[in-house]
């Protein structure tokens, strides 16, 4: 067996979730970029246009899942990159706490905006 060189401990929950979210994000990030820059154009975006897309429940749910998976994948990536740089002990626990709070705040804010577009708030 070749020596394993990975950012994550293989077999752990974080390792698996990072890859499961990656597989989802590969598709949805490409779709998001294509829809909002090549099918629709960013300079033509209006509240009405965004609200119309969000009226579709499938699109709305996909965007919420996109927000949650992207936040987890990104923040977990940052956390593991910092561990690779030598973060350990109490600073590691503090960073984990700050990143967790920032993630939850970002997800809550994103869901709030999505509900505004759907006219639910």
């Amino acid at each position, binding site marked *: *067996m*070749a*020596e394993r*060189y990975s950012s994550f401990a293989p077999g752990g929950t974080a390792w698996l979730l990072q*890859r499961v979210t*990656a*597989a989802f*994000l*590969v598709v949805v*990030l*490409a779709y998001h*970029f294509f829809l909002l*820059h*090549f099918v629709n*154009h*960013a*300079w033509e*975006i*209006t*509240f*009405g246009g*965004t609200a119309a897309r969000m009226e579709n429940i499938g699109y709305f749910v996909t965007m919420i899942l996109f*927000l949650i998976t*992207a*936040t987890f994948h*990104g*923040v977990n*990536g*940052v956390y593991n*990159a910092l561990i*690779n*740089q*030598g973060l350990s002990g109490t600073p590691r626990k503090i960073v984990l706490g700050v990143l967790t709070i*920032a993630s939850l705040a*970002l997800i809550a*804010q*994103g869901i*709030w*905006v999505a509900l*505004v*577009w759907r006219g639910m708030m």
Partner: protein
Amino acid sequence: MSQSYNRGLIEDFGRWKEFSAGMWAWIFHKFTGWMLIGYLFTHIAVLSTAIAGEQAYTNTLQGLEALFVVRLLEVGLLAVAVFHILNGIRLLMVDLGIGLEAQDKTFYASLIITGAITVASVPTFMTEVGF
């Protein structure tokens, strides 16, 4: 039996001249990842203008899109996202045990495809914007 390699710490960036293709892929993946998560927080902040009202949202987005520098940054964002997606697929394949022996070639392919898609997207991103 595969051979075991010890290339030393990749975190020691001062050794960059000794880095192999796979190590550059690792560094580019981290760099583009930092860009993307940073952008996600900014993106949600900008979109949150919708909470202030329909007009505030539309004016903010169209105001930003009228700036040349924003269009330029969007091209950069596309490049960063495309590379992260392509190299991400490469990493998922390697994790599944597919293509490990060609991992340097797939890294170069990721760079070339990213460059091609980025260049091809420039006319779309630069439509209806002036200096």
